[in-house]
């Protein structure tokens, strides 16, 4: 019972903050609303027995990713953006298919007889680590994990290259001839 009360609270906060993202005027307000959504989603993850993902949600999403977004918003300062309309006619029309999509999926899933299995294991660090790196048998997850590491490294290099002011200064003496 208490879990359902918490779930209702978290879901309400998540949906309110999500709609605040759609209708916010300044990007910083939208980023704050998105952080609210992510923190309440972390609470919901903890409620449905996934403590590791809840921690990761706060650490990586609300911590790292949103910090980066807020940082870039503040760097660009958005002073010129006050002239951009919040939602023009085309944008308001784009909300209609999104709402139709949400209503369709919610309507279909809401009628489905889905039941939670009572003996599902908790998503603890040990259980997830045992799935990611099994001690016996074949699994694709270790390769995928390495691929994700390579992807993150590529993203770091790509972001530095993209955000660098002058690409000419990158040329090393041996690269020029």
């Amino acid at each position, binding site marked *: 019972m208490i879990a359902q009360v918490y779930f209702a609270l978290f879901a309400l906060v998540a949906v309110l903050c999500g709609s605040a993202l759609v209708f916010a005027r300044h990007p910083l307000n939208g980023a704050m609303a*998105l952080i609210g959504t992510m923190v309440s989603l972390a609470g919901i993850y903890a409620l449905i027995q996934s403590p590791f993902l809840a921690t990761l949600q706060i650490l990586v999403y609300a911590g790292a990713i949103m910090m980066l977004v807020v940082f870039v918003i503040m760097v660009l300062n958005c002073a010129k953006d006050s002239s951009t309309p919040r939602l023009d006619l*085309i944008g308001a029309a784009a*909300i209609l298919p999104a709402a139709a999509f949400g209503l369709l999926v919610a309507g279909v899933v809401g009628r489905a007889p889905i039941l939670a299995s009572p003996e599902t294991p908790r998503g603890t660090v040990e*259980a997830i680590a045992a799935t990611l790196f099994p001690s016996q048998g074949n699994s694709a997850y270790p390769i995928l994990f390495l691929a994700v590491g390579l992807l993150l490294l590529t993203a770091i290099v790509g972001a530095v290259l993209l955000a660098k002011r002058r690409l000419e200064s990158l040329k090393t003496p041996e690269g020029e001839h």
Partner: protein
Amino acid sequence: MEISIVHLQILAAILFALGMAAAVGRRNIFFVLMGVELMLNAVNLSFLSWSRTFVGRGAMEGQVAPLFTIAIAATEACIGLAMVLMIFRNRESLDSDDFSRMKE
């Protein structure tokens, strides 16, 4: 008392629709990026709640997939914000309607 999977899925659908509205409807490039993040979050919630319906190995697959989604989201935010910085230097604008040089 267990939280119903149906309610979780409906919440995920609502959040996905809100993210889609922000990503498609807004013109400011930051709202587009944040809408994509919200959509990825909704999919994570859907993964986790479906994993509650499985027993054994299937349950853990649903717990591991959001790990990779979070890594992809971090990559996407990193590259996307670097691109926003670069475009803002060239265009002095955050309105996505101004980023239409490929159309001309």
